[in-house]
């Protein structure tokens, strides 16, 4: 009885932190696109956008940590540490879980390269950072397919809002990019 309730608590915790991670990473993605615009957003200092982008990404990593560890500990589904990092090898939902694992790997690479950006040099850092464009859709699909009740509730709404936010930021970025050559 007690194991069942702690099991469901873990499940809720995992799911909750997963959703928060998705929202945070959506914000990270949008902010990242805004900084790449190269043009200041009126009333918002470029440094603030960059700082927010950075801090939100670190925060999302913390939430991801809880999301993943609770999913592993949770006895209801059999996911182990290897499944979390190596894509498409888990017994449970290998493909949809694998997308999450892939996104996690990319995320770790993004964070690590950003922390050593000065030492790494701009070219290598930028090359790795481009994979962020792949990471975010992976997370979106992972969340959409792994959350069983997503189609019916407010989660669907959150996903739609996330897509809208990133699309808006992307539009802004490309529009300024065409305005200035760099």
């Amino acid at each position: 009885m007690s194991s069942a309730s702690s099991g469901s608590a873990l499940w809720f915790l995992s799911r909750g932190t997963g959703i928060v991670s998705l929202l945070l990473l959506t914000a990270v993605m949008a902010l990242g696109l805004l900084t790449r615009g190269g043009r200041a957003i009126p009333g918002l200092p470029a440094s603030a956008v960059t700082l927010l982008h950075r801090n939100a990404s670190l925060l999302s990593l913390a939430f991801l940590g809880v999301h993943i560890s609770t999913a592993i500990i949770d006895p209801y589904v059999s996911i182990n540490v290897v499944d979390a990092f190596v894509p498409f090898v888990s017994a449970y939902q290998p493909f949809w879980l694998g997308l999450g694992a892939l996104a996690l790997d990319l995320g770790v690479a993004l964070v690590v390269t950003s922390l050593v950006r000065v030492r790494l040099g701009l070219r290598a850092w930028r090359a790795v950072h481009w994979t962020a464009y792949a990471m975010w859709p992976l997370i979106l699909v992972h969340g959409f397919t792994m959350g069983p009740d997503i189609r019916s509730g407010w989660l669907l709404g959150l996903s739609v809002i996330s897509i809208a936010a990133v699309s808006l930021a992307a539009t802004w970025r490309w529009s300024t990019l065409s305005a200035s050559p760099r």
Partner: protein
Amino acid sequence: MTTLRVDWIACDGRGLCAELAPEVIHVDPWGYPVIASDSVPSRVLPHVRRAVAACPTLALRLVEPDRPSERR
């Protein structure tokens, strides 16, 4: 004497540095940094470090006194 150096070829004039360390970094009419003083006062060093780290093109460099750059 800690000084700030700009890699002018890399600098894109995004202006983050001037936002983060306005004490020593101003911007010119085209958005490029103007280093206001030859040496960075230790009091504003934390701000300057943040500015150096935040530069999107890694164009800003802090030259520490113990490691003087070879040539201007």
